[in-house]
């Protein structure tokens, strides 16, 4: 069970993610962000709850829809904004962008442009922790339901299961993969049933409900820390926005407006706010103060990014290889 401080922190992180994403979209529309950017709005409860439960020494692997994961793992919004704008002060010196946001200081091993790209990487992190370093760190591997149709999903869960690696496979099932629906791409209703192939626990939960997520994640993380191996968690949720910023078909095209409205009514942030107020964990005033503080932070992040220098020309050729050879 989450204590009140945890819930407040989760609330704040959810809101930080939402406000970050709103701003990122604005910047994209202004032409300041290039390439594909995938907005996390609607799914915030999942990242924020996982982030709250993880230690700084734990690791995550993230996805193309990764801003929320990065923030939840303690990532700084100013360095993130700078990365989106391709500046030298960004997390990756401007070389990664939205789809490659990584923060090794906080255990974020990186977003990934390849669907399912983090799955095998999380297994490797599990090897380091369980077999080589023999510590009790865990790795949360985020991925969408679409990634569960990739072969590497199968190979990763299989290996993690055989070696009982401390990895929590956290599937955010938002019902769509670009324009394609779950029904078209998967012959089973729940992703979690796929855990059976690997003899590991598989759990489906409400991805918009922090309290449920907290308990499900908490026990999966505990299992992993105790050497009992991986868990597959499916958090059902919904992305409010288009697949990528600029996707003109997300409202009324491949998704009905009714469906979108239905899910917006399940907004995880509003739900959490209501719970916080009703349970007297905090009052409206405090929540407003939090929001004001976050808005200020995001504005400053944008300012920081805009004022930041571009990478130097020579940076093009740097970082292809680790240079100091240790021979």
């Amino acid at each position, binding site marked *: 069970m989450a204590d009140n401080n945890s819930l407040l922190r989760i609330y704040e992180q959810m809101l930080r993610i939402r406000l970050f994403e709103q701003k990122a979209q604005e910047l994209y529309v202004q032409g300041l*962000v*290039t*390439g*594909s950017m995938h907005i996390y709005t609607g799914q915030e409860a999942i990242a924020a709850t996982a982030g709250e439960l993880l230690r700084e020494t734990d690791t995550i692997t993230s996805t193309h829809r990764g801003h929320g994961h990065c923030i939840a793992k303690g990532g700084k919004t100013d360095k993130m904004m700078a990365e989106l704008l*391709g*500046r030298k002060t960004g997390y*990756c010196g*401007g*070389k*990664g*962008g939205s*789809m*490659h946001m990584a923060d090794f200081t906080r255990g974020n091993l990186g977003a*990934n*442009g*390849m*669907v*399912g*790209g983090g799955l095998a990487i999380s297994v490797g992190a599990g090897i380091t922790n369980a077999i080589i370093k023999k510590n009790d760190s865990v790795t949360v591997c985020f991925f969408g339901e*679409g*990634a569960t*149709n*990739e*072969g*590497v999903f199968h190979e990763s869960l299989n290996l993690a299961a055989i070696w009982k690696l401390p990895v929590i496979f956290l599937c955010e099932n938002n019902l769509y*993969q*670009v*324009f*394609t629906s779950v029904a*078209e*791409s*998967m012959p089973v209703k729940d992703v979690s049933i796929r855990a059976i192939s690997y003899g590991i626990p598989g759990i489906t939960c409400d991805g918009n409900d922090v309290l449920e997520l907290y308990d499900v994640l908490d026990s999966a993380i505990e299992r992993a820390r105790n050497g009992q191996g991986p868990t597959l968690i499916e958090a059902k949720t919904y992305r409010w926005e288009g697949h990528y910023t600029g996707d003109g*078909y997300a409202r009324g*095209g*491949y998704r009905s407006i009714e469906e979108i409205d239905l899910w917006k009514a399940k907004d995880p942030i509003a739900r959490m706010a209501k719970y916080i107020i009703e349970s007297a964990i905090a009052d409206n005033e405090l929540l407003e103060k939090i929001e004001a503080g976050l808005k200020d932070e995001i504005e400053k992040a944008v300012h920081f990014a805009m004022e930041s220098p*571009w*990478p130097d*020309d020579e*940076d*093009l*050729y740097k*970082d*292809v290889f680790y240079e100091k050879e240790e021979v």
Partner: protein
Amino acid sequence: MTVIKYSQAIRDAIAEEMRIDQNVFVMGQDVETMGGVFGCTKGILEEFGHDRIRNTPISEAVIIGAGVGGALTGTRMLVEMQYVDFILHAMDQTINQAAKVRYMTGGKATVPLIIRAQQGSGRGNGAQHSQNLEALFCHMPGLKVVMPSTPYDAKGLLKTAVRDNNPVLFFEHKVLYNTKGEVPDTDYTIPFGKADIKRSGKDVTVIATSWMVLKALEAAEILEKQGIDAEIIDPRTLVPLDKETIINSVKKTGRAVIVHEAHEVCGIGAEIAFIIMELAIDWLDAPIKRVTSAQAPIPYSSKLEKLTIPSVDRIIDAVKEVMYIK
């Protein structure tokens, strides 16, 4: 002739070939819905129905692998990789299976498989969504490799690809989708292995592929004003490669610059240079130059991306170098 977009040329080629041959089947991620992410399959579902075009799960290996199996059993499999970068998940199917099965069976197997994929940098998509991978496929025998630079070429070559009985990699460039050009109103095809001289000139031969053809043409305009007359050759297909047109041009101009967006090392530039050296060394008045992306992954930051993509300026510089003009 009608002026249409490159993406529409592709769409029209698909639709026309599907009308001609009931055995053409299209599949790939999101191809069925909303006309696909790049609009290249717009209207196909409506006209041909769910038994001729289908969305797949995100499963590159089975998309191409089932492409091979369908092709082996008589279907013309026209499969799409949204971004060529994703084909790296399906290299076993592409290189170990599609490319080799005819040879390994002593010619018994026939593989009419067309893999369409969008490639290239220029839109700030970062290292995993901006690659140009044609050299990998040129290296491995058994695959044809097509890289159209104009709507006319795209349509004519895609129609040829669909009628070919071999695995064909058909690479579309993301930056070209919105470019426009004239396309005949009646059925036509463009044979593989026939380069197109996009501009004739007498001073220097510039061999360029895909988007780089447009850059080379821009460079040629500027060079013309400076009194340099460049011949721009677009091989259009890299396998088979039209050596003859290239060699004839080099014999005429005595100088060659090769421009491609893919990385330099072991790229098609080295190969074409070797061929020129083998067949026309005595006509060369200067060492061949190549203009390529840096030997580094494609950076996200638009500033750096611009630096890595061969620019009009860099092409001009290379031309001047082979002409010993400072």
